[in-house]
């Protein structure tokens, strides 16, 4: 059984309909990737997502690429764990926002882009940031507000930009970056660059007017924008059914008159493939695609959130049966793409790198107000760390790298 993402054409294709047999089919495991799954947000058991599923490899990736993806997934998870530890040691300034359980979406989608493409990650897209080429060291510095970090301590988390390498850090105002990315792609059109853009948004963030205006503009202008709606069941404490009738994000996306891809967000290859295809369609002049990625936020909104609003066992069920790393390892090993030992080696390497990065970042200084409270306007002061200090480049084996 090939598990390809479900693709809905902007025109002509079948738009989503309510499915009365949902529960029956879900039990039988048939409903993979079907939008109706989203209605399970209302459910207590999250049973549908607990169906044992494998991860496809019709994505045509080489072994090296498959391993690279694993490295990125693991690096993402471990880096976040480092951040939590540092948070507990009050080394982190502000909060830590985890992507535990949804790393496959961030990593897989970003892997489907190419170097030079524009990427706009949100707080839960550390994995996308690393995949697109940011150093783990940079993220550590950023979370600890070090002068050496990409924003020089002026801003936090994934909030740093350099359009030269395609990173457009978000502002906190959800939805706001969708029109901004459309603007980046306008610029590329002027410059006749072959660049696409990937912008992440949450199920919650997709309720904002800025999201609507920006995506609609990109659609009317047929810009090569890939929008990933990370449908992770919650916006802070709010379930998706409060964001959109029936929690139906696919129908919402369909209304924009763009292509819609509905994917299993815990399947890193499905995410990769959907993005790659969306990117190609976009560059072929077919306009934006919305990828609705079904996943689950296993941690609270941030470290301080105790998730009291979550039903019993929901988190545990997702952790046990639908962890994106576990699934991917199973696929890699059972499919004989690699050995457990090879994976172990990757892990050892990543651990060592992250330990070193952490030690280096911890030892560094916070910014000096004399040099870092300047340059609201161009005043000849450029105290920002240039991207070369925080950029390692896209992954070696990624297509087009």
């Amino acid at each position, binding site marked *: 059984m090939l598990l390809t993402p479900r693709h809905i054409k902007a025109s002509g294709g079948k738009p989503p309909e309510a499915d009365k047999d949902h529960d029956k089919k879900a039990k039988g495991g048939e409903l993979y990737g079907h939008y109706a799954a989203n209605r399970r947000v209302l459910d207590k058991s999250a049973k549908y997502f607990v169906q044992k599923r494998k991860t496809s490899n019709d994505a045509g990736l080489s072994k090296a690429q498959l391993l690279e993806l694993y490295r990125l997934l693991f690096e993402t998870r471990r880096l976040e764990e480092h951040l939590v530890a540092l948070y507990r040691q009050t080394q982190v300034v*502000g909060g830590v926002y985890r992507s535990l359980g949804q790393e496959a979406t961030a990593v897989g989608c970003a892997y489907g882009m190419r170097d030079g493409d524009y990427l706009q990650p949100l707080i839960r897209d550390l994995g996308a940031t690393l995949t697109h080429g940011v150093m783990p060291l940079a993220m550590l510095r950023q979370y600890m*507000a070090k002068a050496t970090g990409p924003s020089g*301590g*002026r*801003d936090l988390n994934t909030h740093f930009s350099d359009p030269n390498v395609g990173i457009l850090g978000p502002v906190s105002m959800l939805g706001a970056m969708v029109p901004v990315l459309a603007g980046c792609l306008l610029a590329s059109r002027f410059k006749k660059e072959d660049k696409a853009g990937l912008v992440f948004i949450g199920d919650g963030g997709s309720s904002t007017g800025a999201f609507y205006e920006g995506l609609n503009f990109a659609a009317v202008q047929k810009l090569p924008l890939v929008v990933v709606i990370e449908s992770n069941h919650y916006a802070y404490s709010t379930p998706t059914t409060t964001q959109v009738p029936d929690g139906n994000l696919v129908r919402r996306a369909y209304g924009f008159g763009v292509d819609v891809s509905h994917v299993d967000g815990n399947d890193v290859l499905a995410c990769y493939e959907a993005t790659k295809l969306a990117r190609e369609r976009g560059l072929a002049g077919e306009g934006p695609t919305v990828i609705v990625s079904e996943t689950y936020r296993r941690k609270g909104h941030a470290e301080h959130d105790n998730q009291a609003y979550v039903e019993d066992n929901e988190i545990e069920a997702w952790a046990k049966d639908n962890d994106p790393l576990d699934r991917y390892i199973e696929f890699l090993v059972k499919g004989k793409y690699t050995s457990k030992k090879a994976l172990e080696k990757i892990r050892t390497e990543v651990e060592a790198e992250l330990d070193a990065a952490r030690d280096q970042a911890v030892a560094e200084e916070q910014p000096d107000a004399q040099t870092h409270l300047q340059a609201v306007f161009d005043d000849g002061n450029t105290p920002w760390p240039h991207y070369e200090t925080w950029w390692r480049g896209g992954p070696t084996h990624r297509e087009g790298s």
Partner: protein
Amino acid sequence: MPEITFLEAVNSALKEEMHADERVFLIGEDIGAYGGAFKVTGGMLDEFGPERIIDTPIAEAAVIGAAAGAAMCGMRPVAELQFIDFISCGGFDQLVTVAAKSRFRNGVPCPLVVRGPAGGGGRGGPFHSACPEMWFVSTPGIKVVFPATAYDAKGLLKSAIRDPDPVLFLEHKFLYRRIKDEVPNEDYVVPLGQALERRAGDEMTIITYGAMVHTSLEAAEELSKNGHSVRVIDLRTLVPLDEDTIVKAAIETSKVMIVHEDTRRGGLAGEIAAVINENAFDYLDGPILRVTAPDTPVPYAPSLEDAFLPQVSDIVTKANELLQY
């Protein structure tokens, strides 16, 4: 009288007003089951049910727009922004266009309250630390409240909810759990538009509001150690501005300094300088001076944020300059 925190004071004002007036309801993001990002509405869903504690999509135009519509139709909505910074999104237009102009345009009152956590010191960075008061002070039709104590927070919020016009109610998040006051159990209000002399003094006056009231009081205390008598006025309400108290202080102390956490250019200090010029110029024995944040976004790193926010020492230094004038 029990001692309660600023946050508890806001919570109890909301609860009491909801009990007293069935027209009052709350609307915002994550205010129900979660009790709000800062837990200001904690426990209220259980007490009042989802009809009166309305969780919304992430859509501030809907939050404030729906509140404005309900207010025009006789309700008394209180809209929460998760951080007041997000007022720059779609809800901005609802507040400055729909709510602020309704009475003037056609006599339809729009008594809504928009409240939310403001201010820095929490290491929130450029988008979770705003003092956005001047966007609204400069827009006719919106009252603006910025309390400094738990007692005032409760009494002013009650006034705001009962007020017949739109009110922006700014809660300094740094004070939520750091400030405790004796707050009466009985119903009371602090009227809008009345400043309060927090410290008596006759050599000079510091006019301030919000969290800077505490910083300014510390500075005044320090100045007193050198024998200086510094009056500290807490504005409490920025619109309507208590011009009488401001002018009286200028006349009586002849020297005035304004302290605010908001950035400098176009800040409230300018408005106060103009008011004093117009009403008490002859009494001035020195220039009206300002201690404010610099004209930058709020930075994230503690080293930067501390340099950004006016500190006791900044106030003392500037005050000494004025005292010696």
